[in-house]
């Protein structure tokens, strides 16, 4: 079992993270990964130029590690891999990578799904959207909370 969970101040390279996860998955039968991108359109349909993610010097990393560790405990996975951007992220750039490796595919699918539902609602970041209609803080939606509740 291995867990990678960290923040990334510079560009996140999903292909590199996936390659690292596959390399660790010796003997496994499945690797599932999710890459989240900074969306270029706001809920109101206006252009978004970038996201700005503030973070806490200690609690942010702790939250990523706790979520990754919970996924590793809950599902029959051999590796969990979570990388989350902080700072300024231009529209279209990767903001998060969440992946898992397992002997059989179902556990890896479920772990990746679980990781994202927890990250959306519990990872310690404060997200601001900057676009043509100004700047506004983003908080989890009712759907995000409902998705999180699926896991109890």
């Amino acid at each position, binding site marked *: 079992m291995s867990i990678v969970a960290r923040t990334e101040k510079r560009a996140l390279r999903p292909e590199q993270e996936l390659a690292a996860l596959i390399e660790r998955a010796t003997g496994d039968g499945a690797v599932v990964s999710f890459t*989240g991108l900074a969306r270029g359109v706001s809920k109101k349909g206006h252009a978004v130029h970038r996201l700005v993610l*503030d973070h*806490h010097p*200690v*609690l942010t990393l*702790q*939250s990523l590690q706790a979520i990754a560790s919970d996924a590793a405990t809950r599902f029959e996975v051999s590796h969990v891999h979570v990388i*989350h951007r902080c700072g300024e992220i231009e529209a279209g750039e990767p*903001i*998060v990578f969440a992946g898992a490796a397992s002997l059989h595919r179902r556990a890896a699918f479920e772990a990746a799904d679980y990781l*994202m539902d927890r*990250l*959306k*609602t*519990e*990872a*310690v*970041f*404060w*997200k*601001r959207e900057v676009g043509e209609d100004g700047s506004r*803080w*983003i*908080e*989890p939606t009712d759907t*995000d909370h409902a998705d999180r509740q699926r896991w109890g």
Partner: protein
Amino acid sequence: MKVLFYGRLAEAIGPELDVGESRGCSVAELRERIVAEHPRIEQVLRNNRALSFVGERQVRDDYRLSAGETLEFLPPVSGG
């Protein structure tokens, strides 16, 4: 005593506030004191949407602060 803010709270009133001698004060009392001086953040600070932390541990509103402790208020988080 120092109080630290993050996210929309930091944007509204700055990342750090000196609230003077606060030994023995509860978190709830400090919430009220800060809101009285900075009504712009009332909505986030008064209805407990902002979680309170001391020494990287979450504390409840009845927690009483000791000398040298730093209180932090974290507004709702959003990752992913």
